[in-house]
């Protein structure tokens, strides 16, 4: 291989890598809050949610060559963050019940008057089956429509509508203050 050819190939690889890094930067700016909120909906603590979301981005970076499409990346990131958050929370629950009490006490609320309401809401969401829980959480994040949630979860829109209906009905049964 001639020197000129080697230099050309080297420059081409560097260009491809640089392009990938630029795209990944754009994904971080686009999806970091989404990943954080998905993680927060499970772990309920700011620092833990950030750690989980960071780990999801590290994994996304490893597989980014296969995830260059924006929609594919968002869907993959949401599902990975959700799984990581569930794993994290299970580990935390195994470690100590005291940690859970701390998490509930540090849960942020829109207003002090709504502490009791927010706690009841999260408790009711936690009691939902996992399929219904991620659907209702994603629908509440960033104003996602049914089609957005369907794309993120890789499900038909009819399935998402059905799950949203069931989730709301179960939450209504638990939350007396919505009546």
């Amino acid at each position, binding site marked *: 291989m001639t020197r000129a050819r080697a230099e050309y190939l080297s420059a081409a690889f560097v260009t491809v890598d640089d392009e990938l890094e630029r795209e*990944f*930067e754009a994904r*971080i*700016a686009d999806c*970091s*809050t989404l990943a*954080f*909120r998905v993680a*927060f*909906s499970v772990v309920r603590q*700011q620092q833990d*949610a*950030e750690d989980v*979301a*960071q*780990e999801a*981005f*590290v994994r996304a*970076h*490893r597989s980014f060559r296969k995830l260059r499409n924006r929609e594919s990346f968002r869907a993959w990131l949401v599902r990975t963050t959700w799984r990581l958050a569930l794993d994290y929370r299970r580990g935390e629950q195994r470690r100590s019940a005291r940690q859970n009490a701390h998490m509930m006490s540090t849960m*942020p*609320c*829109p207003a002090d008057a*709504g502490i009791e*309401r*927010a706690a009841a*809401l*999260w408790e009711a*969401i936690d009691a939902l089956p996992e399929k219904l829980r991620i659907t*209702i*959480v994603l629908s*509440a*994040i960033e*104003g996602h429509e049914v089609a957005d949630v369907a794309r993120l979860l890789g499900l038909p829109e009819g399935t998402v509508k059905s799950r949203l209906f069931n989730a*709301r009905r179960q*939450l*209504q049964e638990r*939350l007396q203050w*919505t*009546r």
Partner: protein
Amino acid sequence: MDPLTDFDRALRDAMQVEPSGDFAARIRARVATAPRESRSLIPGFAIAAMACALLAVVVAGVWRETAPFVADSALPHRDLLVPSEPPRVMSSPPELAPGSRAKFNAADVVVSRSEMLALQRLFGGITVAPPPLPVPADELSIPEIVIEPIAPMVSGPEGERQ
């Protein structure tokens, strides 16, 4: 107030949490310090495919060496001229009328066709050398054998140094 609307509003408010200000920067730092996976020039599936192909070649080779030979009737062969009757295996010798000759019956031959074809190929490939021609006795001449000593004879008493 519509309870579902109230509920949805409460849920959205609960989800309106924001990460810390340097969250994106910390993601970049974490990604930069994370160990990168090794990038191989040959993808994993290509390595697996090559391994499968290699295994198939090895298995086929072993199978060919151990498989029994099956004669193929389509193979070219020469007809074998059998000077005598082919071997026969019979449960009991046929009773012949005195003075009558035994007739060759192909149904009595129990040698399988594949074996017969193999024998035909074996013998068909052998070129039988013609018998040597008889040499006339008058052309046969054998030179007389002359035995010569290796070293010239030296006169003198035996055992004496020369």
